[in-house]
C-alpha cells in the first residue's frame, strides 16, 4: 500500500473502473485536451490534472473532450447514462452548475422516478468546490446543499484520499446520478490508499474520532480541520466524536443522532454558505429527533453569508478554521 494524493486516488478509481468495465467513459473540458499539440500525445487531464494519463491509455473514444458548453455535455452524459454507458463527466467548477442544472435536476435526477423505476442513470458528475484557492467568488463556492435539496441525486463529499477512491468507485458502480464534489485545496493531500479496487458504501457515516463530550459533524475538507480541533482539545480534557457523513444524500441520520444522544452536545462544521446548508439541516434534524439529549444549544461553524472574497486576508477569515471550530466546541462545553 502506497501513499497517494487525493488527485491520484480519484485517477486510480476512474482508471481501474475503465479497465474493468468498457461502458465507463470520461468527458469534460480539457479531459483529452492537447489535440494537435506538438510533442507527446497527452492531455491536460482536466483543469487540475485529475484525469491525466487516461486519454493515452484508453484513447479518444473513451476520453472525450467537450466544448465549453456544460448544458450540452452534461445533457449528453445524462443521455448516455440512460442509454447504457457509465459516464464520468467533469463539470469543472461547481460554480458553473447554473448553466446545466436543468439537465441535472429535471432530467438525470428524474429518470428513475418518471419512468416507473425502469430507467437507470449511472452518471457521475465530478466537480470542484471550496474556498482557499485564491480563485475568487465565481470559482470557490460549495453549493452541495443545492444538489442535496434535489430528490433523485446522490451527493458525495470525500474527506481524504482513501475516502475519495472508495467513494468514486462506488459512484461509478451506482445506478443513480451521483454528484461527486472534490475540494480543490485537497488535491495534494496524501495518505495510504490501497492499490486494489474497493468501495465505500453511500449513506454510512465514518467516525474519525470517538469521544464522550461533544459530537462534531463535518463535511469534506472540514473533516480534517475538525479532527485537528478535536486532537488539540483532547489535551485540555475535552473529548470529541467527529462524524464524517461522507454523503449528504443519502444522509446517515442514524449515526448522527446516536452520537448526539451519547454526547449531548453538537457542533456542525459546514463550508457552505450558512442559509439552508447542511448545518441548518442537521440542526433541524437534531432539534426534532434528539432535543431531549441536548445539554447545550447546537452551534454551527459556517462562513458568513457573503460571496467568497478575493482578497487573501478576507478569504482566510471567511473559511471555517480550526480555531473557530475549537471556539465553538468550547462554547458548547461551557453549558
Amino acid at each position, binding site marked *: 500500500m502506497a501513499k497517494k494524493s487525493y488527485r491520484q486516488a480519484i485517477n486510480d478509481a476512474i482508471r481501474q473502473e475503465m479497465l474493468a468495465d468498457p461502458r465507463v467513459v470520461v468527458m469534460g473540458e480539457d479531459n483529452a485536451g492537447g489535440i494537435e499539440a506538438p510533442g507527446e500525445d497527452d492531455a491536460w487531464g482536466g483543469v487540475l490534472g485529475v484525469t491525466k494519463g487516461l486519454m493515452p491509455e484508453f484513447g479518444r473514444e473513451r476520453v472525450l473532450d467537450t466544448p465549453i458548453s456544460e448544458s450540452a455535455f452534461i445533457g449528453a452524459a445524462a443521455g448516455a447514462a440512460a442509454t447504457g454507458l457509465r459516464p464520468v463527466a467533469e463539470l469543472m467548477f461547481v460554480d458553473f452548475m447554473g448553466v446545466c442544472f436543468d439537465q441535472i435536476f429535471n432530467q438525470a435526477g428524474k429518470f428513475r422516478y418518471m419512468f416507473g423505476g425502469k430507467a437507470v442513470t449511472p452518471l457521475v458528475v465530478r466537480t470542484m468546490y471550496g474556498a482557499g484557492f485564491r480563485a475568487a467568488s465565481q470559482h470557490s463556492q460549495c453549493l452541495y446543499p443545492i444538489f442535496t435539496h434535489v430528490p433523485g441525486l446522490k451527493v458525495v463529499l470525500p474527506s481524504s484520499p482513501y475516502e475519495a477512491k472508495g467513494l468514486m468507485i462506488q459512484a461509478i458502480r451506482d445506478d443513480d446520478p451521483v454528484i461527486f464534489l472534490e475540494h480543490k485545496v485537497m488535491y495534494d493531500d496524501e495518505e495510504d490508499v490501497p492499490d486494489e479496487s*474497493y468501495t465505500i458504501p453511500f449513506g*454510512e457515516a465514518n467516525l474519525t474520532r*470517538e469521544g464522550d463530550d461533544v459530537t462534531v459533524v463535518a463535511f469534506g475538507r472540514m473533516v480534517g480541520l475538525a479532527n485537528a480541533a478535536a486532537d488539540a482539545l483532547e489535551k485540555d480534557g475535552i473529548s470529541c466524536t467527529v462524524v464524517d457523513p461522507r454523503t449528504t444524500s443519502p444522509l446517515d441520520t442514524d449515526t448522527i443522532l446516536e452520537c448526539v444522544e451519547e454526547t449531548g452536545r453538537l457542533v456542525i462544521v459546514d463550508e457552505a454558505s450558512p442559509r439552508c446548508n447542511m448545518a441548518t439541516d442537521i440542526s433541524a434534524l437534531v432539534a426534532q429527533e434528539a432535543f431531549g439529549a441536548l445539554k447545550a444549544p447546537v452551534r454551527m461553524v459556517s462562513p458568513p453569508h457573503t460571496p467568497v472574497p478575493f482578497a487573501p486576508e478576507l478569504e482566510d477569515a471567511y473559511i471555517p478554521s480550526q480555531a473557530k471550530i475549537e471556539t465553538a466546541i468550547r462554547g458548547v462545553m461551557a453549558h
Partner: protein
Amino acid sequence: MMGRIEPIVMPKWGLAMTEGTVVGWEAGEGDRVDQGQDILEIETTKITNVFEAPAGGTLRRQVVHEGDTVPVGALLGVLADDEVSDEEIDSFVSGFVVEADDGEAAGEGAPEPRKAEAGGRTLRYLEMGAGEGTPVLLVHGFGADLNAWMFVQPTLAEGRRTVALDLPGHGGSQKDVGAGTPESMADTLSAFMDEVGLERAHVVAHSLGGAVALALASAKPDRVSGLTLIAPAGLGDEINHEFITGFIEAGRRKEMKPVLGLLVADPSLVSRDMIEDVLKAKRIDGAEEALRTVAAANFAGGRQAVLLRDALAGLSCPVEIAWGEADRILPASHAEGLPEAVRVRRMADVGHMPHMEAAGEVTRLILAGLE
C-alpha cells in the same frame, strides 16, 4: 540477566505505529519489578495494551509521564540495580539516543511488507529479523492479516528470521482462495516457503491458521520443525457460527463492533480504528467472497468441517497449544484429550486472541518452544 542499566523504550506495535501515549505507569519509581511484569499501559491510535518489563530490576526512573506522547524508540523509563548511582542514571537518560528500528533500512527504519508469488497467487508478507535462531513463520486466522502478530513478531525477530504472511483472500494477498480448505492453503504455504527461501520453520499459527499449519506439518513434515498453535481450528467441531456469519455480513461499523467484541475477553479493547481496519480490508473487491468461500469450506452450517486430531497425533515435531479460557469462538475444551506429547497452556481471562490479549505470555511460550 540484565545489564547494569536497562532502558524501557516505546515499542513499535504494527506497521502504522510511529508514536505512542503513556496511559499510566503500573509500577512506581523505586519499585522492584520482574521481567515480564506489567509496568505501564501504552495507547496508540489503534490499540491500548500493557507493556511488560523487558528485564527485572528496580524501576529507577519514569522518563515519560502519564498522558505524554513520544515516538517509537523513545526512552520511557530506566531499570537498574540498586547499586547504580543516581548520577549514572542521569547521564544514561541525558545521553540516550533513539535507535532506528532494527533492521532493514536507516531513515524510515520500519520493515515494509513485500509481495511474493506462490502457487499462482500473489501473497503479502512481512519479514523481520535475522540470526542463527530457528526461523519462525506466523500464520493468522480467519478474517485477520499479518498485523495480528504486531505484539509478538518484533520480540521473536531478535535473533532469528521471522516471516508473517497474509493467507490467500486476506489482507494484501490475492483474493482467489481456490478451494479454501486447510489442505489447499497448506499447499500455498509450502510454495510460499519455497519462494521466500524458508526451508524449514517453526510455525506459529492462530485459529484457522492453526488448521493450515497442522495440514502443512502433516503433509510436509520436513518443512516444520515445531508448532505453536493458538486456539487452533480443527480440533473439535464446535465453532461460533454467529461470529463467522456476523463477520462476513457486517458491512457497517455498528454491525461489526459487537462481532469483533466476541474475539476478546474484554470487548472494550475493540477500538474505532480496529473496526475501521477490518472494514477497510473487507471493502477490497473480492474480499467478502473469499471469506464466504473459506467459511463454506471450513465452517459450513456452523460446524467445523475439517477435523485434524488424527493429523496432530501423527506428528513427530514438538507441538505446543495455547488457549484462552474465555474463548467465545473456539471453546478451550478443544484442547482436551490431545496426545500426551502436546503441551497445552490454558490462559485465564483471555479470549480468542491470546497473541494480542496476553502477548507477552504467548511470546515466551513460543520462545520456550523454540529451544
